[in-house]
């Protein structure tokens, strides 16, 4: 059934709508295992909505989301939560919540009301704090942290959930360029060193190109093109996906394409 032989999470013919308004039409897409996939597209292209469907926050009107070959809607939600983690866009931490407590909350799917804290939880929380460089800040309150630190704390929470797949909705929103790189380097490390499959929505096309192994580009609720950035990022891509005229050049140091937008194309 899989579109990619190595994709564990797939959407087949997805139709997603908010009430009467169709946002995504006939989307069939999968995410290569062990890779970083970035979904890109203009505002309101349906990319965040698609991510919601893949993390079962939204029920498709048509089509099916499958995880390991089985419909995600038919699987026990706790089992799914141990495989598939989600970090929503700009989540809010209540005041007085320490970083360690926040990260510990990520253990929720591994716990139950009669067994609320185990050695596994402690080890996973410490490992998540370590992996995200948050050990030093563990006892601080989340709402006292800077934007970049806060985002790392949230990622640590998602890491503590110990899922093979991690979905991130615009993890760099409201961050300056240095902190964007910082957060995305962390995400890349989780992928390379910890072998997690990453699917994220990013606004910034150049950052998407730089960090993605695989890009999924959407426009008007439909899949336009997908593939490795080096193969698909062209002037035509810019025009077709974003409605922008510009150049695509090679970054001589990083060795990946860079887009130079010049003007919007009147439609």
């Amino acid at each position, binding site marked *: 059934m899989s579109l990619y032989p190595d994709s564990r999470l797939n959407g087949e013919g997805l139709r997603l709508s908010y009430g009467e308004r169709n946002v995504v039409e006939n989307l069939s897409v999968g995410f290569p295992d062990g890779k970083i996939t970035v979904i890109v597209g203009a505002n309101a292209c349906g990319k965040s909505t698609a991510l919601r469907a893949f993390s079962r926050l939204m029920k498709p009107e048509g089509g099916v989301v499958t995880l390991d070959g089985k419909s995600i809607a038919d699987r026990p939600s706790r089992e799914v939560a141990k495989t598939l983690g989600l970090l929503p866009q700009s989540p809010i931490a209540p005041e*007085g919540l320490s970083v360690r407590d926040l990260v510990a909350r990520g253990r929720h799917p591994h716990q139950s009301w009669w067994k609320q804290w185990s050695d596994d939880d402690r080890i996973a929380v410490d490992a998540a704090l370590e992996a995200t460089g948050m050990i030093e800040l563990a006892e601080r309150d989340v709402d006292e942290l800077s934007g970049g630190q806060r985002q790392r704390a949230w990622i640590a929470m998602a890491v503590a959930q110990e899922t093979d797949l991690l979905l991130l909705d615009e993890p760099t929103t409201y961050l300056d360029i240095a902190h964007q790189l910082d957060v995305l380097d962390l995400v890349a490390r989780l992928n390379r060193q910890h072998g997690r499959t990453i699917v994220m929505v990013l606004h910034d096309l150049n950052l998407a190109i730089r960090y993605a192994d695989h890009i999924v580009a959407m426009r008007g609720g439909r899949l336009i093109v997908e593939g490795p950035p080096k193969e698909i990022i062209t002037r035509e891509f810019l025009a077709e996906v974003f409605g922008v005229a510009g150049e695509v050049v090679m970054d001589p140091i990083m060795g990946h394409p860079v887009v130079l937008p010049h003007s919007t194309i009147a439609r």
Partner: protein
Amino acid sequence: MRIRPRASVARAIAAAALVLLVVAVVAMSVGDRATNPAELVRALFGSGEENVVYAVREVRLPRVVLAVVVGAAFGIAGGISQGVLRNPLASPDVLGVSAGASVAAVGVMAIGALGGPIGLVPIPVAALVGGFGAAALIAALGFGAGFRGRSLLLVGIALSTALTGITQYLLTRMDVAGAQSAASWLTGSLNARGWDDAAPVLIGVAVVVPIVLILGHSARALIFEDDLTRNWGINGSAVRVALLACSVSLAALATSAGGPIGFVALVSGQVARRTARVADIPPILSGLIGAIIVLVADTASRTVFPVQLPVGVLTAIVGAPYLLYLLQRPRRGRGAL
């Protein structure tokens, strides 16, 4: 540091339980005929001076138990609803449960005074029906709000204000003696109440506490938005509805037994959260704090002053300073607020 994240809650619960025990011993020792600890223990087992045994077993013990269960019920109810609705103002008394109980109780007193069958309805029953009725009305009106956020709170406040208006009107139509006894009930009082009043609340607490413990693991996650908790496999709306039902039931039972004792439901959860230094409201700790507040207030109301004051007069005087102290306390490390 390798600490269990919620060790502070366990410590605070142990400390609050100890404080409650000490206060309860003091409460059972003081009165017209003060007892020393040895006398108290003997009297509890039925030996010693006859009038001491009577005072301890028949007067003080039921009243202490009533104060503890009513306070615990208000404390748990307030902690739950504030946590579920993520709003420090969203206690059941603010949401209209107390106003519903009050209008029904005063209505029975006022109409009963005119004669007829309504006057035969016991006041606690009227209050219970009124409290649940108001809760049902809020639920119906707030259904569109998805049981969360400010809209439900606003619905509750609007309903509360309307019902309080009706209560005020009834008070103006009653004769002076009737109005005075109604006003005393409206303040919240444990005078001349005992086992019969405590039993229904005790049963309510005994039913709700296990539910709260079972749902607690999911309930603690409700401090986050539903996007996050749904990914964890939590049905946020179902947990919220179940917990709010527990909250209003406890509040209605407690109001029925002790009248609408003010401030306890509102303050206990906030004190609990800040004492344990956590981001959510631990319901059991909130219940213990409610019990301490009501027991201290009730004991003071019957011993410190020349006349027995209604307990509701004192709960705010007992609870408010501690909350104000906690609010003033500087933040340090993982401090609260």
